[in-house]
């Protein structure tokens, strides 16, 4: 399995595409993009990025068609995959599966028709199906945050607000625990906040009631962090030094840029991985160069210094 530094790969792909449009005019390609519908902030950003990139690429390549098809549930997505390949089959499929195990079969059937398969973020249960796998690095997501806590606090008590009980969440938490192991940073309490702003508010209120002293909060998600901040502000507690979220929400990155003391950093898990995946897939088709393997997007600590790189004022996320 090959690991690439995806930033470079994406730039390379974009360079191939945008720098040499003449080559592509010779061929007509169709790419189908299947992803969950915008049911929360992160998937909203995902869909926004996919549509942006589709328009950009179609403009650059008159012979290229990108069909973006959001689905509202796993079953819906399975049907959508059948529909997308029922008539004229696309040359490639970029898919972010709703659920790994439920959609493995559906993607395998698409693969059987000779379609190039790019899987994004949530892996299939059978990795042999995918030609290309583009994902964020979840354990690293936790580690980056954990390292920041160790470095910033040295010693201290933190509370952790987890997401929805999933593999993604477990990997992140494990990464965090690994990073703080042996340090003076201790986890005081952990609860699920379901990647929701309202839950973040509630759970934080309860943490504040339960623990007289908390040094910092790892919310693992920017939506949750927003809710937690409101609860802290309401309780007028001065013991909490900072809250770290994650995923790179527009408002949060803006805050990091502006030097928000309560949320000084963010951890990237950008929905733009969809962009990268589409770019790489197009690169594979157009350049006839084999772009295969696994590409993990490096997870980056967004600080005041580099925040502007991650800021898109138009993103809905």
């Amino acid at each position, binding site marked *: 399995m090959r690991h690439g530094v995806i930033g470079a790969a994406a730039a390379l792909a974009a360079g191939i595409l945008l720098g040499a449009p003449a080559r592509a005019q010779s061929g007509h390609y169709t790419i189908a993009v299947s992803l969950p519908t915008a049911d929360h*902030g992160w998937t*909203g950003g995902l*869909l926004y990025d996919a549509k942006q990139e589709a328009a950009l690429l179609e403009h650059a390549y008159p012979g290229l068609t990108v069909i973006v098809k959001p689905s509202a549930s796993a079953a819906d997505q399975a049907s959508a995959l059948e529909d997308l390949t029922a008539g004229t089959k696309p040359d490639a499929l970029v898919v972010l599966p709703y659920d790994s195990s439920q959609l493995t079969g559906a993607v395998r059937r698409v693969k059987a028709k000779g379609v190039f398969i790019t899987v994004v973020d949530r892996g299939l249960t059978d990795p042999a199906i995918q030609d290309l796998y583009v994902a964020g690095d979840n354990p690293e997501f936790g580690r980056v945050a954990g390292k920041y806590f160790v470095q910033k606090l040295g010693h201290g008590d933190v509370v952790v607000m987890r997401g929805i009980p999933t593999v993604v969440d477990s990997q992140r938490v494990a990464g965090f625990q690994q990073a703080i192991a042996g340090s003076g940073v201790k986890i005081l309490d952990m*609860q699920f906040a379901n990647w929701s*702003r309202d839950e973040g508010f509630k759970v934080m209120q309860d*943490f504040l*009631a339960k623990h007289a002293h908390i040094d910092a909060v790892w919310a693992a998600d920017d939506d949750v962090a927003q809710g937690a901040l*409101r609860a802290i502000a*309401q309780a007028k507690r001065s013991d909490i030094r900072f809250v770290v979220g994650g995923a790179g929400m527009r408002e949060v990155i803006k805050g990091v840029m502006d030097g928000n003391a309560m949320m000084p950093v963010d951890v990237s898990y950008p929905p733009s991985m969809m962009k990268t995946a589409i770019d790489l897939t197009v690169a594979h088709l157009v350049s006839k160069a084999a772009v295969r393997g696994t590409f993990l997007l490096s997870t980056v600590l967004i600080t005041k210094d580099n925040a502007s790189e991650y800021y898109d004022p138009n*993103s809905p996320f």
Partner: protein
Amino acid sequence: MSNAAARAARPRRIDPASLAPFAALAVLVLVGTLLNARFLAPDNIANVVTRASFIAVIGIGATFVIAAGGLDLSVGSMSAFIGGSAILLSNASAGHGLGTALAVGGLVAIGGGALCGLANGLVITVGRLEAFIVTLGSMGIFRALTTYLAQGGSLSLTPDALQDLVRPVYFGSVLGMPVPVLVFALLGGVAWVVLNRTPFGRHVVAIGANEEVARYSSVAIGRVRTLTYVIQGGCVGIATILYVPRLSSVTPTSGLLWELQAITAVVIGGTSLRGGNGRIWGTIAGALVLESVANIMVLSNLVSEYLIGAVQGAIIIVAMLVQRSLRRN
């Protein structure tokens, strides 16, 4: 027999089942305190009671709908939808002054809620469809419209001055009572009078008890039933007015599963899911029970975070069993 004598001759019997939700609440408070003394801290109690206000207010409306033998599954997504609409229209009118923006937001929330309820009610009564199916459909419609309005992201009140202006609606207090608590207490009082002391309330219960009897008694069934959904919509509007100031924003996940929580609060409160009776104060107690259970779960260290849902479910079932055993035969 004189009226006074007649009244004296009819002592008000208190149905023990109507006390069950309050007993359950008392037990929870006791258990919560034993598990962690901080449960009784004034701040924590204020947090819990204030957080319960959304479900309490929506539950008050749901008590009408369910007492009349109906059901409204759309309340959670309706709240997100009218919350999103209110935010967009407030933001748009902020140029005419913050007061205008505030008024627009409030009107949109309550008026929009009533209209959404009217739509549900009319489809159910005029279209002669099952409430379950109609409101399941409108639940999906409202949720999708919210996602569309937010483009998958979140909708926030702007400018910040507007956020600061509305914040006291959730965080403020009058004479030591948080504003949302005052709102649901007041609303509860009004709702109790409407349900128990007006001809309309009596017809609501009659329809839920036996729609045929009401029809044979010349009760205007369609109008009464539709009105219960309008009341429900208005309550959702009020709950939304309390909800938006908390985080100053609405996301596509706002109000998720509120319909189930509201129905659970109503049932814990002693209202039969089949209709024919309605207990406003019981519903409010039910909402407090739900919120307390969640709070106690986090405050205590007894249960793994993975199992909290199971314990909550079990507590609700036990509460219902106790209530059933208290029911007068």
